[in-house]
């Protein structure tokens, strides 16, 4: 019997598999394909204080081993989430996290305050790294001062586990991670998407309405892995790793690099039951290599 339980700085995970915000809807989109209760957790769509229509179509372009998106945080706002969506999902026996985003610090704070009141939401993921909104989002996550400002303000009102999602579009992700740790973040998740673009050579037009968008998928995995390794060595709070995970070996790699848990993102679009296949793959790996406790893999890179 392999122990897959992880104490993620107070957040009790039955296994290291979570799903990435924006790739998993509100969970229920996947209930035809998997038993959501088997997940370590799922992170629902980026939620803002007010309703957002997001960016115009086209919002997606497939690229080599990846995809660009420019959805732009389309969501119905935190009130609709609390009143209509939360009651539908709150009884799943797994950790449900809400990804919280905003344009100004006050919006993050108001949204986090409202989520704080929801009994069955044990944590939020503070999104200071969305590359697809004009104001806020990634702007907060690309300098230590602004990252500190928003984390400090949210920390005052949010009493449960505060995970902060970091942007890879920075010169030094380690310094940002240290800044948010200093302001009281309970964990960090990394990486969000990489800013990229795609052009249609025939029409000479950009493939996204916003010209640039966020790159995800296996194309970004080696960079994400490197960043997780650098950050995990530098901070004392646990790291949730993500970026191009497609299979169980990818998860093991992220854990060896120092992640205590992971998020599956773009892979959900291709295989809606991939999370459970990966979970079974991890159990298989542990049996095959004699790993009795998944925690033994965290940061166990032999270098």
């Amino acid at each position, binding site marked *: 019997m392999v122990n897959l339980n992880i104490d993620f700085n107070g957040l009790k995970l039955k296994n290291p598999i979570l799903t990435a915000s924006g790739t998993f809807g509100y969970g229920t*989109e996947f209930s035809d394909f998997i038993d959501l209760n088997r997940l370590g957790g799922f992170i629902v769509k980026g939620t803002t204080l007010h309703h957002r229509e997001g960016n115009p179509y086209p919002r997606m372009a*497939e690229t080599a081993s990846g995809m660009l*998106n420019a*959805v732009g945080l389309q969501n119905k706002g935190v009130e609709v989430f609390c009143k209509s969506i939360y009651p539908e999902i709150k009884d799943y026996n797994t950790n449900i996290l809400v990804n919280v985003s905003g344009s100004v610090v006050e919006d993050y704070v108001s949204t986090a305050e409202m989520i704080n009141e929801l009994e069955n939401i044990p944590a939020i993921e503070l999104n200071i790294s969305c590359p697809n909104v004009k104001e806020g989002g990634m702007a907060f996550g690309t300098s230590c001062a602004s990252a500190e400002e928003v984390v400090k303000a949210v920390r005052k009102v949010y009493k449960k586990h505060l995970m902060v999602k970091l942007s890879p579009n920075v010169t030094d992700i380690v310094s940002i991670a240290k800044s948010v740790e200093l302001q009281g973040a309970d964990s960090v998740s990394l990486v969000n998407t990489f800013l990229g673009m795609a052009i249609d050579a025939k029409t000479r037009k950009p493939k996204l309405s916003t010209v640039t968008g966020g790159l995800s998928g296996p194309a970004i995995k080696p960079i994400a892995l490197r960043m997780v390794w650098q950050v995990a060595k530098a901070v004392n709070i646990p790291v949730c790793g993500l970026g191009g995970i497609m299979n169980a070996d990818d998860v093991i790699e992220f854990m060896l690099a120092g992640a205590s848990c992971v998020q599956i993102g773009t892979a959900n*679009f291709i295989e809606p039951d991939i999370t459970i296949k990966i979970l079974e793959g991890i159990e298989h790996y542990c049996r095959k290599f004699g790993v009795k406790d998944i925690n033994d893999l965290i940061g166990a890179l032999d270098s």
Partner: protein
Amino acid sequence: MKKYIHYFEVIYNTQLNTDYYLLKLFTEEDLPAIFPAQFVEVRIDGAPNTFLRRPISIHDVNYEKNTITLLIRIAGEGTAILSSIKSGEYLNLIYPLGNSFTMPDSDRILLIGGGCGVAPMLYAAKYFMQFGITPTFLLGYRNKESILRPEKFAKYGNVFYTTEDGSFGEKGNVLNHSLLNNEEISFEKIYACGPEPMLKALSDLAISRKIECEVSLENLMACGIGACLCCVQNTDQGHKCVCTEGPVFNVKNLIW
């Protein structure tokens, strides 16, 4: 409506002309109820540069033989790989996806397809026929050589054609056809699928003549199940997912 992930065996893969292939697929699982204009997301295995599934509309269904048929147009690398699949090989499908054309009140209905947009119209006609409705088809192609499965369409209704070069049927596109330009012929409802400029022009015509009109859209999508929010269409109720709240929209709700 419950969605499934099933493996399908390729019964045959027939080239229809330079750009189009007909794929007949069999599953050992029971087929769920499938409605007109619904689609599948096909996983493309072994493609070096693509990794997302490809949304393909359901062209035909046979519940007795547990088969579905897809009409594939080679549009890029993903569909090129699909076109080379051999009988006996397997494809992984998520289905049935999307909403569907709504039932008409009479058989004064016109099914319009342009190019690859003819694909859902065959099954739509077959489906409506169960309710005693015999539709009229208006199908638009580039030329005579590009006409797809004429005998098959003729089994389910009266078929009228346009070709851009006039080599078969009336010359021009479907909007120019006399069926749509004769005050004495009236349709209760039009169902259409095809290139966006055709659908927009048709929408204008339907609205000005007060004819109900539903179109099936083909926006780029990633997941097909309402999670990624990439395939949105602007409507009078804001952005709607083409994969789950479409692909069928009444033109009066579209903002395009």
